[in-house]
């Protein structure tokens, strides 16, 4: 193994042989075509039936900057980030080599292009170096510089197939599917894979102790990006108008909606499109269009990220008060506008929950998986129509733009769209007087009429407030107050229409509870397992799936002596919502926070829990895992 490596130390530690439980990190240059090769790598592992979770960590530019692709495999099905150093780094970017070398765990492997010698500063004596002359191979094989660059990526995947045991047939099947429509690209790709495989086999007599073995753990599962699932969910949920403005990391939601709508919603004969996708001039316009369409009874949504939500505040307030449905998907990213737009965070909870000046509260949904992205997006339209208010789905870059293993998507064909309380022409005909803001049944939700419904009745001038229950203009303080109180009744009503929390009780003594949401789920669940394994401490957990919080959330917190709230922001934003809305003692909830822009890892959570619970600190989860 060490023949070809620059490692001088003879006693480099050796990793224990391990199957389907390690992390591989690719260090690439963006815009160099590495993404498709890396995806091929992950997909092949998926097809081997092994739980795998790939994550892209990419810069905010288009070409030439460092980008990483971290792939975790885990027979135990842990799909969050593990944290800590990794077992294998595949280094294809000279810019970031120092950092990439440092990323390898003791005994781990640094795979690199040894066409040129490695800088001596990059030599550690506790890791293994695997050099292959990638540049030399591609220069020999290809003339065109672009092909050299592209196939270099495929070649290293081929080498990995040999080194860590990816089934070649799995790679082949991925190549076949990827290029199903450009068939002539298949043979050269297979050939490049083979070249990589052969080169590695020739250079290194035996594969690494990190090995992949076929499993059958991915039956009934797909590998999918959350954004695509959202787009598809909007198609299934009956959205007809998507209005959006490009912004990373939400752009692919609108794009997916358009693609799926083109696939499923174009009339074959007439070419008519039963949907409209409008690239608006900005986010203010996008949400305005959404409100306009929903006002007219056409289901409509927008997708954006934090800066867009900030800009949409005024309109969201209007929709809250005027009681117009709207669906907004916020794929969260880091902090400010000129910040780190390609990094992930869960930091838009406050701005979303209380968007707009004045007293407002908005329904939030927190999906954790692509399947939930699909389902909750579809549900969001029912909830928005039923409650006549904006519904904001908070996903994030990690969920939206990375591929995640998820259960197969399903749809109940008997399901009907819940359009909520809309009066028909006949209803109006039968009515003596229509009261747009009149609460006839005490749930705080009033009937609405749509434009054009009736020649004489039902028309009204939509405004924020300043109107009676019959939508007649008034500036009466009493009417204003009554209306505001009704909105609180409606807020309560919403609880029965939104997704319930997911509760996992494994400790009947109810000492410690952990609350989490969204993309913190996988890492939190793993952390809970690890704490149980390491310290024998069992913790119950609750995954919040929506805001306002239902009684179950309140009960869970009440039941436990101490409750941790895991989230990916600095200011403990979910905790703030919990304390406010459930009127809790702030001290009851201990924040576990992670907000550096990388997806949260199990290690980060374990470390903080151990500290907070005063448990003997583990040396490193990574050690234990490998």
């Amino acid at each position, binding site marked *: 193994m060490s023949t070809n490596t620059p490692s001088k130390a003879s006693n480099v530690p050796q990793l224990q042989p391990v199957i389907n439980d390690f992390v591989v990190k690719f260090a690439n240059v963006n815009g160099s075509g590495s993404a498709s090769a890396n995806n091929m790598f992950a997909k092949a592992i998926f097809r081997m039936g092994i739980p795998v979770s790939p994550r892209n960590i990419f810069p905010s530019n288009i070409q030439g900057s460092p980008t990483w692709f971290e792939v975790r495999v885990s027979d135990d099905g842990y799909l969050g980030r593990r944290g800590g150093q990794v077992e294998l780094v595949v280094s294809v970017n000279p810019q970031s080599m120092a950092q990439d070398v440092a990323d390898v765990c003791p005994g781990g492997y640094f795979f690199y292009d040894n066409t040129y010698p490695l800088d001596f500063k990059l030599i550690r004596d506790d890791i293994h170096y695997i050099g292959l002359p990638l540049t030399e191979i591609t220069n020999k094989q290809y003339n065109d510089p672009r092909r050299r660059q592209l196939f270099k990526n495929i070649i290293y995947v081929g080498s990995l197939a040999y080194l860590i045991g990816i089934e070649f047939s799995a790679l082949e099947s991925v190549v076949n599917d990827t290029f199903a429509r450009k068939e002539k690209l298949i043979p050269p790709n297979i050939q490049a894979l083979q070249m990589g495989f052969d080169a590695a086999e020739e250079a290194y007599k035996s594969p690494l102790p990190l090995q992949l073995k076929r499993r059958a753990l991915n039956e009934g599962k797909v590998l999918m990006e959350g954004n695509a699932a959202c787009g598809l969910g909007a198609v299934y949920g009956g959205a007809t108008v998507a209005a959006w403005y490009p912004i990373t990391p939400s752009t692919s939601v609108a794009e997916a909606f358009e693609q799926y709508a083109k696939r499923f919603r174009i009339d074959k004969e*007439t070419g008519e499109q039963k949907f409209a996708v409008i690239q608006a001039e900005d986010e*203010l316009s996008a949400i305005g269009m959404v409100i*306009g369409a929903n006002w007219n009874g056409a289901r409509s949504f927008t997708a954006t990220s934090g800066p867009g939500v900030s800009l949409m505040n005024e309109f969201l307030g*209007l929709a809250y008060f005027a009681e117009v449905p709207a669906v907004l998907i916020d794929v969260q990213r880091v902090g400010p506008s000129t910040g780190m737009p390609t990094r992930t965070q869960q930091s838009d909870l406050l701005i979303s929950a209380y968007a707009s000046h004045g007293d407002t509260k908005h329904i939030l949904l927190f999906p954790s998986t692509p399947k939930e992205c699909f389902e909750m997006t579809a549900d969001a339209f029912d909830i928005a129509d039923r409650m006549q208010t904006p519904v904001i789905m908070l996903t994030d870059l990690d969920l939206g733009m990375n591929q995640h293993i998820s259960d197969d998507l399903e749809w109940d064909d008997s399901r009907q*769209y819940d359009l909520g309380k809309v009066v028909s022409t006949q209803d109006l005909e039968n009515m003596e007087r229509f009261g747009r803001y009149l609460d006839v049944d005490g749930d705080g939700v009033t009937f609405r009429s*749509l434009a*054009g419904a009736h*020649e004489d009745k039902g028309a009204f001038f939509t405004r924020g407030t300043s109107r009676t229950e019959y939508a007649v203009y008034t500036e009466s303080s009493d009417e204003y107050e009554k209306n505001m109180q009704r909105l609180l009744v409606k807020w309560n009503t919403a609880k029965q229409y939104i997704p319930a929390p997911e509760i996992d009780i494994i400790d009947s003594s109810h000492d410690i509870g952990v609350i989490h949401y969204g993309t913190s789920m996988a890492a939190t669940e793993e952390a809970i397992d690890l704490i149980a394994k390491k310290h024998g401490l069992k913790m119950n957990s609750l995954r919040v799936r929506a805001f306002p919080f239902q009684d179950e959330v309140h009960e869970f917190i009440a039941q436990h002596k101490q409750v941790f709230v895991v989230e990916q922001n600095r200011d403990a934003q979910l905790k703030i919502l919990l304390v406010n809305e459930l009127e809790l003692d702030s001290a009851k909830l201990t924040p576990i926070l992670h907000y550096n822009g990388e997806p949260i890892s199990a290690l980060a959570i374990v470390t903080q829990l151990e500290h907070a619970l005063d448990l003997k600190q583990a040396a490193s989860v990574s050690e234990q895992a490998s």
Partner: protein
Amino acid sequence: MSFLKPSFRHPSAPLNTLGLTTKAYEGGVSTLCAGCGHDSISAAIIQAVWGLNIAPHRVAKISGIGCSSKSPNYFLNKAHGFNSVHGRMPSVMTGANVGNRDLLYLGISGDGDTASIGMGQFAHVIRRNLDMTYIVENNGCYGLTKGQDSATADEGSISKKGTPNPYEGIDLVALALELGATFVARSFSGDKDQLVPLLKAAMSHKGFALIDIISPCVTFNNHAGSTKSYDYTRDHVEAGAVMDFVPMEQEITIDQIKGSTKTVSLHNGGSVRLSKLDDGYDPTDRRNAIMTLHDHKAQEKLLTGLIFLDADATDFHNTLKLPKQPLNQLNKDQLCPGNSALASVNKGMK
């Protein structure tokens, strides 16, 4: 005006083809200042929609914020309306319009609402050629916030405070022409004879129709020295191409009739008959329209009437290839691909 209108109508008040008098097209009692130009525009809108024989409930009225944007409350009570947020009428309009193509869409805005905070949305709704009538009730000031200069105030016009405006005014007509609007007109709230047929034509145009209407604010911008007062406007108005709206549908081509008259069929019904100006002004030529506008401005004249018309441009519904059936009327079976389609989607992600 806060006085109650007499509810009595003469029994012989004329009926339109739907059997309705203009009464069916009225709105609530105006709370605007007595004499406000906006009220005259409301009256003209009532006349126009009535005259087009469109049932009032087939109209949607959408506005931003301002005195002008309140005015939809004062016409077409039987139509749904939306008093949205300041400067964003075009986006709400676009969503509503795409969501249900089967209504007649009137967008009501002010010069503040359009030319300052709403400038971006104004430009972009034009670019999409949305099938709507965009009415700017232009008084050169912010009425509702008590009379500050707006961006359409002319350079040198004296404000209520007594100071001359140092900035060149934005000419929304010129801008719309430059941005590719397909129906562009200007009028004056005080000239009902010109305004009503213009409104009818605009509403019959399939595509974006702008009518920039000088509509004096009696409270804050009707004094001497203001270039948006009744007096100043009356003195400086110059009608461009004389235009008739002809209600029946005619063929969709442009005919030259008797040399000086031209008829343009409008795709939403009716047609426009133009008597051209002596100097050969032809409102179907954009370049010419822009030039004529500039020339009038140079002479401190306000060109009114139909300034430009392109009846054949693709409107937004067609750009989007929308079905004839409005999107808001499509049902689950038409929209939801169902579980079987999901199976194929799942397969593609294995």
